[in-house]
């Protein structure tokens, strides 16, 4: 009898415990591209999300308005598709009652998901989406008030690259080769051209190709003919090695500059020694010696056995921004969290200092310029806006 009584008491306590924990938990939804075309992106996002949440929970949870809360995440797969991203957002908001969403990463999914977040008044932070339409409503041209991103936009990157080419590389004449089939890369090339010319530089060649081309010798010969001081290649990392090799074979020795599309460690293996000395802009530098970055890279490496890429770093910062905003909020409600995110100023993330301005979901942050040196990505400089 006594035994039964004790068991019943334990059960009761357990139930109370569960109920109490439920009361103390806040739910955050994550939408990642776990399957589909870019599973590597989804995997990095999931890893970083789990790590960020574990770090906070290990410290006893998050303090909102004087009360400790345990963070719980619900990870949904968008399969890299627009429709599935939208239904994942809807599911997280209506069924799981999340108070904020991190993701999706790819703009194709982030744009439809952002519409749902906006109408449901749930804050959403996309770590990696660089398309303007994610935070701006294309119909009205107005900023969405519940949607944020942790990265900078393509137009900003194009401007920074132009400033870097003119300022630090002292280039007066630049030539550009880009993939015309990619909206992102086309945008980077066009903004670079515009800014470079506005600031007094000359564009000596502006050549294109389409995804899948391997022979760039005709375009490179054309670019060489304009005798530029610099070549800009806003192209995907799998095309970069061929372009650089063909340029070098034609005797082009000028510096080569790339964009964030280069940021995959596979580039180093594909390039051999050819890319040595080239520069590119990126969101994140894993070999940075800044204390926060080193700890993040070491912890990530210890957990998953690999170096975090820019998606992982941006996801980690998205959670950082969200947690920081929650700490400042008076209560765990979506409205309060949204207002707190808008007031984030100088948040020290692993991808740099992040500041939001009232009425805009796009952060102000610095761009990292990396150089390929001794077969690795090395930090070269930070460019502030």
């Amino acid at each position: 009898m006594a035994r039964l009584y004790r068991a019943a008491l334990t059960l009761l306590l357990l139930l109370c415990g569960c109920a109490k924990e439920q009361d103390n938990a806040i739910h955050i939804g994550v939408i990642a591209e776990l399957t589909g075309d870019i599973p590597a992106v989804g995997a990095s996002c999931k890893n970083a999300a789990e790590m960020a949440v574990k770090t906070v929970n290990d410290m006893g949870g998050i303090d909102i308005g004087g009360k400790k809360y345990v963070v719980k995440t619900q990870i949904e797969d968008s399969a890299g598709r627009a429709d599935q991203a939208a239904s994942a957002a809807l599911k997280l908001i209506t069924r799981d009652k999340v108070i904020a969403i991190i993701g999706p990463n790819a703009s194709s999914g982030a744009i439809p998901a952002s519409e749902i977040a906006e109408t449901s008044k749930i804050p959403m932070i996309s770590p990696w989406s660089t398309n303007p339409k994610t935070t701006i409503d294309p119909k009205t041209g107005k900023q969405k008030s519940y949607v944020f991103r942790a990265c900078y936009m393509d137009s900003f990157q194009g401007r920074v690259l132009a400033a870097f080419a003119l300022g630090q590389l002292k280039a007066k004449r630049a030539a550009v080769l880009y993939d015309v089939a990619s909206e992102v890369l086309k945008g980077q090339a066009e903004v670079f051209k515009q800014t470079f010319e506005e600031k007094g530089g000359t564009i000596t060649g502006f050549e294109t190709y389409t995804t899948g081309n391997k022979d760039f010798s005709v375009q490179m010969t054309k670019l060489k003919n304009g005798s530029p001081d610099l070549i800009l290649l806003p192209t995907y990392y799998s095309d970069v090695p061929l372009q650089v090799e063909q340029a070098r074979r034609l005797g082009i020795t000028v510096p080569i500059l790339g964009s964030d599309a280069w940021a995959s460690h596979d580039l180093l293996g594909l390039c051999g020694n050819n890319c040595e000395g080239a520069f590119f802009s990126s969101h994140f530098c894993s070999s940075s010696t800044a204390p926060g970055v080193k700890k993040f890279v070491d912890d990530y490496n210890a957990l998953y056995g690999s170096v975090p890429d820019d998606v992982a770093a941006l996801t980690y910062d998205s959670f950082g921004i969200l947690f920081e905003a929650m700490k400042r909020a008076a209560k765990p409600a979506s409205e309060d969290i949204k207002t707190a995110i808008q007031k984030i100023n100088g948040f020290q993330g692993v991808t740099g200092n992040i500041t939001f301005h009232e009425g805009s979901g796009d952060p102000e942050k610095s761009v990292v310029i990396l150089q390929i040196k001794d077969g690795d990505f090395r930090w070269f400089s930070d460019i502030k806006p």
Partner: protein
Amino acid sequence: MAYIAQQFLNMLQLGSIYAIIALGYTMVYGVLSLINFAHGDLFMVGAFLCFLASSKLHLPFYIVILAAAAGAAVLGVTVERLAYRPLREAPKVSAIITALGVGVFIENFTLALSPYPRHVPELLHNISYNFNGLTISSIQMIIVALSVLLMAGLDFIVRKTRYGSAMRALSWDMRTLPLMGVPVNAIVALTFAIGAGFGGVAGTMYAMAFPVIDPYMGIMIGWKAFIAAVVGGIGSIRGAMLGGCILGAVETIAAVALPSTYRDFIAFTLLLILLIFRPNGILGVPKTLKV
């Protein structure tokens, strides 16, 4: 001047690779009237064999190129034996669908083994020579020289040897030939071996010139080489060589004269116009000498 010469060299390099691949299409068509759509994928397999032989086994250049050619030839003959021979009497459409299916099979088989792009290490150390602003790389010269050598060799085999005359006879009349004591199956296998072997060599040359390879690399190149074969006159060996050079030239000139975005668009428009006026291709006059 140096600029024009430079673009002319680019043209020769591209044209000779197209020509070598186009030969594979044209030989098979000449003998069996079959368009072997898997040929572009045999080319891709050649490039991957080159990658394996050079980066994993560290073999010297001439063995790498022989291994790629032999591997692709064996695969070509196997495909013929297993997929095309049973359909030799079937309607042509079935054979063409089979060829497409074999192509997709080879692509996806490679994709399952190695889904990511691979970097082929430098097979021969590249030396660039500079003459008054004109840069000639040793790789470019080797590619053009090797192509010319292979084409001359093939032309000799087809025109001067017993095997060559058997191939030509086969393209005239497949039913009568066995009565003359010619082993038809062996000659067909030989044709596939030579065509696929050329594809393997082209894959190696391509991997030397453009050293990042992936399982889908054969599709676009295969189409272009097929078009080169049709322009030259499918079934005609000299036509394939000519067609490859013409396609390389048109593509280069289109990209030089106009923004490079229009490259393929202009090139293919010109080829379509050419075919309207010469539907059999340039050298493909009906009832002419075929392989």
